């Protein structure tokens, strides 16, 4: 028999004494606890729900069933991206039924008590759980960010369990919730990579793609990477891009950057004895970057930034590249995806106008690769995002080019690919 022990209160919830919604959610949490061989459940302080992105009838029927049964979240719960841009509906190219079902799914989440954040980067719009806190987050990039950069504790949850956990206020005490589950089992050493190359933006998603490939879902410590999480956002955004890509090419839920991330002041703090170390070469990093580019030649139709959602610091860096009067080439569609929360602050600082005047478009509440936004004639898209580059060829049937924000802007102005490969040789 499994060793799962429930408290009296948890047993009552499971038995239906707190209503059928709570009982159904407990059946899911307990089902996962048994699969994970968790000894008990643990109370959570926060949740991030991924189920508001429309994938079909099943997700809608599940969430509306919870509403019908009167379910309410017990902890602060933010919402991930949806399939609609409610602030810029004219950008949407989805059909009427898809749009109507997507809207119903969003409304159902609000009815359960979730906050209308509609972002894959809740951590950059005011939802930052404390170091060491137990949480139930879904959305692979948000999971790896919360664990690695914030030092909060969530396992890799998906749609359905996130909201179920928020409704019962508990998750299985296993995996990344436990001290033992957070120890690195492998070290990747980047000390052979030049500092100049590590200061290139594209190095970070490339490190992420490599990490995902090597790690699978294991916890890895990264050694020899620069960074300071108090530098105003640069390091945070680099690690955001790294983690998002690692959670796409692999199932990474937590990584440690020695000397940078909060659980890893030293290598000894995050690894057990006799852990293997792999030295990473520039050639490996280059190969990893090249995997994120599927296009051949210098043709370009569009640029997409902001996956995960653009932060205020990224907006500041982007607008610095845009001088007054800069215009993107007529042939290039230029998209930036962000949260409504960050957009509001960007508007206060005038960043939005600079981008719009150059010919850019801003997408909120959703993302350019999860719902029909791009023009159907677009074939090749440049992005600074390893995650976008990883998924877009399958989701959208287009080719991708990975580059820095600076290179994306230069390419959008030139109307064709402009990328400096000198450092990568």
């Amino acid at each position, binding site marked *: 028999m499994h060793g799962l022990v429930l408290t009296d209160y948890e047993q009552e919830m499971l038995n239906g004494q707190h209503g059928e919604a709570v009982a159904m959610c407990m059946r899911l949490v307990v089902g996962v606890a048994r699969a994970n061989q968790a000894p008990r459940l643990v109370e959570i302080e926060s949740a991030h729900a991924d189920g508001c992105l429309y994938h079909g009838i099943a*997700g809608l029927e599940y969430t509306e069933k919870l509403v019908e049964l009167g379910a309410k979240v017990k902890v602060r719960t933010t919402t991930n991206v949806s399939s609609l841009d409610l602030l810029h509906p004219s950008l949407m190219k989805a059909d009427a039924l898809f749009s109507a079902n997507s809207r119903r799914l969003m409304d159902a989440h609000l009815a359960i008590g979730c906050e209308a954040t509609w972002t894959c980067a809740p951590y950059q719009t005011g939802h930052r759980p404390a170091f060491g806190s137990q949480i139930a987050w*879904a959305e*692979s990039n948000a999971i790896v960010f919360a664990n690695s950069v914030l030092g909060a504790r969530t396992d890799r949850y998906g749609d359905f369990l996130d909201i179920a956990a928020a409704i019962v206020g508990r998750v299985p005490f296993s995996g990344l919730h436990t001290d033992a589950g957070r120890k690195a089992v492998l070290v990747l050493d980047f000390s052979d990579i030049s500092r100049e190359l590590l200061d290139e933006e594209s190095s970070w998603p490339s490190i992420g793609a490599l990490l995902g490939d090597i790690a699978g879902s294991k916890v890895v410590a990264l050694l020899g990477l620069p960074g300071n999480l108090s530098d105003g956002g640069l390091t945070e955004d680099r690690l955001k891009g790294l983690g998002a890509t690692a959670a796409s090419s692999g199932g990474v839920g937590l990584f440690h950057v020695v000397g940078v991330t909060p659980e890893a002041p030293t290598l000894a703090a995050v690894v057990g004895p006799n852990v293997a170390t792999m030295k990473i070469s520039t050639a490996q990093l280059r190969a990893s970057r090249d995997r994120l580019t599927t296009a051949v030649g210098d043709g370009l139709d569009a640029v997409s930034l902001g996956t995960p959602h653009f932060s205020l610091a990224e907006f500041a860096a982007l607008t610095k590249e845009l001088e007054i009067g800069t215009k993107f080439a007529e042939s290039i569609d230029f998209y930036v995806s962000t949260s409504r929360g960050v957009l509001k602050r960007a508007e206060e600082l005038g960043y939005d106008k600079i981008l719009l005047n150059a010919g850019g478009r801003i997408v909120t509440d959703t993302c350019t690769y999860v719902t029909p936004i791009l023009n159907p004639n677009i074939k090749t898209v440049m992005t600074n995002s390893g995650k976008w580059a990883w998924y877009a060829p399958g989701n959208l049937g287009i080719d991708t080019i990975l580059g820095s924000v600076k290179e994306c802007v230069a390419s959008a102005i030139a109307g064709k690919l402009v990328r400096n490969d000198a450092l990568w040789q």
Partner: protein
Amino acid sequence: MTLSGNKILTGRALHPGVGTGEVLVLDQPISFWGGVDHHGVIIDVHHPQCGQSVAGRVLIMHSGRGSSSATAVLAELIRAKKAPAAMLFTECDTILVIGALVAAELYAISIPIAELSPSDYSKLPTSGCVTVSASTETLIATIS
């Protein structure tokens, strides 16, 4: 290799159910979201088995990968009857277990999922038809 006659392997049940189908062994893990379309066809261009269908197959892979939306994609595939008949891993993939749990709640269709030891995993057939029978009451899955 096929399992001969009455050969049986056992594993740890992650989700209960009984399923029979043609084996599909994946050389690399896959994320259902972004990796498998609504018909159950693998669309991940990075995947060596891109173009093959998982529908009705006994899907064998070390573990899932990537997006946490894979739960919803699996539940939707189960609803549309385009899901694998069963799944066998060497590492428990919570994200796919959740999709199976929700589909069982909503549609009363229960897809067996089980975890095998690496040595038993290597004994699995690479072609032919197998049946997976998993019970979470006893936490045992049999593959015959």
